[in-house]
C-alpha cells in the first residue's frame, strides 16, 4: 500500500510531500534515508515505517530525542499509523497519509476574481494611483492658507500616496512569507480602488452634513460607510493574498476593521475630556451648487431651538 509523507512546519504549513510504494520507509539525517531531514536534533537513522501486510507500523530506531505523536508524550514507537497522524521528531514534524485520505472540496473561483483581475490591469492600476495622488494634492491645496506652487503640493501628496501604498505592500509581504502568491499588483490595485472610494464616501458625507438639519439623525448611519468599505477592502486583501476558509476570511477582515475603527474610537474616547466648555456643532458648509435641501424659516428654526432648552436642563441635572 502506498504511503504519503508530508514534511510540515510547526504551523502545519506544507514544506514537502513524498509518495512511497515500497514496504519500508526510512527517515533520518543520514544520506541513506528515503527522506533526509536537515535538523540537528534528528538522528542519522531516526525512524522507519514498515508495512506488515495490514498496517503501517512506526519504529523509532532508539533515537536520542525520540519520536512522538503530535503534541503528546506518547512515543511513536510501535505505533500503528492512521491516516493523518502527525509525528514530531527533533524540531521537525511530518504527517503520514494514505492514498484514500479525504480532501477538502474544490474552491470555486471567487466572484470577485473578475474585479481583482480588472484592478490589476496596468492602466487601471496607474490611473487609480494617480487619482489618489491628485485628490491628496487637492486636499493639501484646499488646506493651504497662503499662495503656493505645484511642488509644494506634489511632494506631500506623493508622500501620502507612498504611505498608503505601504498597506498593500505589507499584505503582499505577509503572503510571501507565508508561502502564498505575492500578487502585489492585485493588492495595490484593489487597495487604491478602495482608498479612492473612501474619498467618495467623504464627499458624500460632507454633502449630507451640509444639507440635512439636525432633525435628520443620519450621521450615525453615514459613518458606517467608511467602516463597511474598510471591511470590504480587508476581505478582498485576504481573498487575493491567502488561501483561507470563508469563515476565517470574514473573521480576519472583521478583526482588522474592529482594530482600526475601534482603536481610533477608543483613543478618541480616552482623549475626550469629561466636560467641555465649548459647544460641538455641525458647521459643515459647501459651495452653493451642493445645496439641495429646502431652507427652513426663522420660525421653524426657533421652534427647533426651543426644544434644546429642556434637553440642556435634563443634562444639567446629571451631576
Amino acid at each position, binding site marked *: 500500500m502506498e504511503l504519503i509523507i508530508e514534511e510540515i512546519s510547526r504551523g502545519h504549513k506544507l514544506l514537502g510531500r513524498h509518495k512511497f510504494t515500497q514496504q519500508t520507509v526510512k527517515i533520518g539525517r543520514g544520506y541513506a534515508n528515503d527522506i533526509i531531514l536537515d535538523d540537528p536534533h534528528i538522528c542519522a537513522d531516526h525512524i522507519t515505517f514498515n508495512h506488515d501486510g495490514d498496517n503501517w507500523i512506526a519504529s523509532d530506531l532508539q533515537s536520542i530525542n525520540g519520536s512522538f505523536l503530535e503534541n503528546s508524550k506518547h512515543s511513536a514507537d510501535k505505533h500503528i499509523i492512521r491516516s493523518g497522524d502527525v509525528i514530531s521528531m527533533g524540531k521537525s514534524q511530518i504527517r503520514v497519509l494514505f492514498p484514500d485520505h479525504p480532501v477538502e472540496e474544490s474552491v470555486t473561483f471567487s466572484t470577485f476574481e473578475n474585479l481583482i483581475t480588472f484592478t490589476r490591469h496596468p492602466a487601471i492600476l496607474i490611473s487609480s494611483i494617480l487619482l489618489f495622488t491628485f485628490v491628496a494634492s487637492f486636499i493639501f*491645496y*484646499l*488646506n493651504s*492658507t*497662503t*499662495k503656493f506652487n505645484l511642488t509644494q503640493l506634489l511632494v506631500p501628496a506623493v508622500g501620502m500616496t507612498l504611505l498608503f501604498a505601504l498597506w498593500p505592500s505589507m499584505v503582499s509581504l505577509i503572503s510571501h512569507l507565508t508561502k502564498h502568491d505575492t500578487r502585489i499588483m492585485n493588492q495595490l490595485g484593489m487597495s487604491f480602488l478602495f482608498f479612492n472610494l473612501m474619498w467618495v464616501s467623504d464627499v458624500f458625507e460632507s454633502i449630507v452634513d*451640509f*444639507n440635512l*438639519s*439636525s*432633525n435628520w439623525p443620519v450621521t450615525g448611519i453615514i459613518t458606517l460607510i467608511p467602516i463597511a468599505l474598510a471591511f470590504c477592502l480587508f476581505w478582498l486583501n485576504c481573498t487575493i493574498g491567502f488561501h483561507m476558509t470563508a469563515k476565517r476570511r470574514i473573521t480576519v477582515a472583521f478583526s482588522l476593521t474592529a482594530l482600526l475603527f475601534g482603536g481610533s474610537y477608543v483613543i478618541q474616547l480616552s482623549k475626550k475630556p*469629561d*466636560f*467641555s*466648555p*465649548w*459647544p*460641538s*456643532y*455641525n*458647521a*459643515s*458648509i*459647501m*459651495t*452653493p451648487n451642493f*445645496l439641495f*435641501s*429646502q*431652507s*427652513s*424659516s*426663522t*420660525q*421653524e*428654526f*426657533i421652534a*427647533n*431651538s*426651543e*426644544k*434644546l*432648552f429642556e*434637553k*440642556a*436642563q435634563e*443634562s*444639567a441635572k*446629571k*451631576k
Partner: protein
Amino acid sequence: MKGYFTFLLLCFSSMGYATEKAEHIFKELAPSLYQIRLIDKASGEKSSIGSGFQISKEGLIATNYHVVSGFARHPAKYKMEYLDNLGNKGALILKSVDVINDLAIVKREVNANMPYFVLSDTTPIKGEKLFSLGNPHDLGMIVVPGTYNGLKKESFNQRIHFTGSVNSGMSGGPVVNEFKKVVGINVATSGNQIGFLVPHDKLVNLFNSYKVSPPESIDQQMSEQLSQSQDKLISTILAAKWNIKHLGKGLIPTIDVPFIRCWGESNADKADAILLAAVANCSLEENTYITSRFFTGSLEMEFQYMHAKELSDTKFYHLYENRIKRAGPPYKAIKENVSQYQCQHDIVSPSKQNIKNKAVFCTRAYKDFPQLFDILYLSASVDKNNQALVSHFTIAGIERDSALAFTEKFMESVTWN
C-alpha cells in the same frame, strides 16, 4: 509776583486741608472699618481678603459680593471672619447679596451699640472730593483721596467713575464725602488712577429690602437677581432701535444703546492674504461675577464679511468653513456650574431677507439656577460663491423666552445688501 505767591499759598493750604481732612476722616471712621477674610477650613489659611464697613449699630457690615463669593457658593468650605482696627477677629454671617451690583451684607455679633457709617442721601457732584477707604493688598487700612467723575456712560449697571487709586483688597471698602457719608463702594479698577465704585443707592436698596424681609435663601435671591437683570437688559435691547449698517456687501444690525460698544478689524492691509475678511464685534463690556471661574451676564455679537481674492469657490468655502468651526463662549464656566452645550443646525432663509444661511443654535443650562441658560448662535451664508457673511452671538445667563425673542430678531436682521 505778589499774585503768584498768593496762588502758591492757596495751593499749600488746600493740600494741607485735604491731608488733614483725610486724617480726620480716617481716625473717626476706623472703628467701623473691617478687613473681611475668607478662611479655607481645610488649610486654616485665608483664601481671599477684602474690605467692609459697618452700616448699622446692630453689626450689619456691607462689602462686595465678590469678596464673599467663595462663602456664598461653598459655605461648607470656608468660614468668614472680620478683622477690626484693633486687631480683633470674629465670625461673620452672610445675610443678603446683590450679585448684579456686587454687594453683600454680612453680620457680626455685637454686645453694645456700635458706631457705623451713614449712607448719604444725596449723589455727589462732578469734581467733588471723595475719600476711599480700604485695606489694599493686606497692607493695613488706608485712606485714598480722589474725585467723583460722574457715572460711567457705557455701563448697563451703573458704576461711579472715581479718579483715585483703588487697589485689590480695598474691594468692599466705603467711599465717603467730606461729611463722612457713604456715596459709593469700591469695586474695581482699570489701573492708573481710574477706579470704579458701586453707587450708594444700590446699597440703600439692598439694605432697605433686607430690613423689610431678609432673603430666605441666597441661591434663590441670586437666581432672581440674575433673571431680572438679564430680562431688563434684553427688553431694553429689543425695545431699542436696531440700525442697519454695511459690512462689506452685507447688512448687519447695530443696536442703538450706549452700553453695547463695537470694535472692528480687517486684513485689508495684507497684500498676500487670499481671503479678505472684515470683522465687527459688538459687546456689552461688563459681566456678572459669580465665582472666579464662573461669569455670566455677558452679551457679544460678531459679524464677519469674507470675500475671495483670486480663489476657487471650493477653496474659499473650505477656508471659510475652517473659520466658523470653533465658535465658543467668551466667558469662563466649569462643569460644576453648567451642563454641556446642546446644539442643533439647519439651512435657514429668514422670511423677509434675501439670504440663505447655515444656522447653528446651542444652549447649556446652569446647574444652580435652573431657569438660566447660556446661548450661542452662529450663522454662515451659503448662497454666494465667493462671498460670505457670518453672524454670531453669545449671551450668558438668560431665560428661554428672552433668548428665543432675541435670536429671532437677530436672525431677521442680517442679510445681503
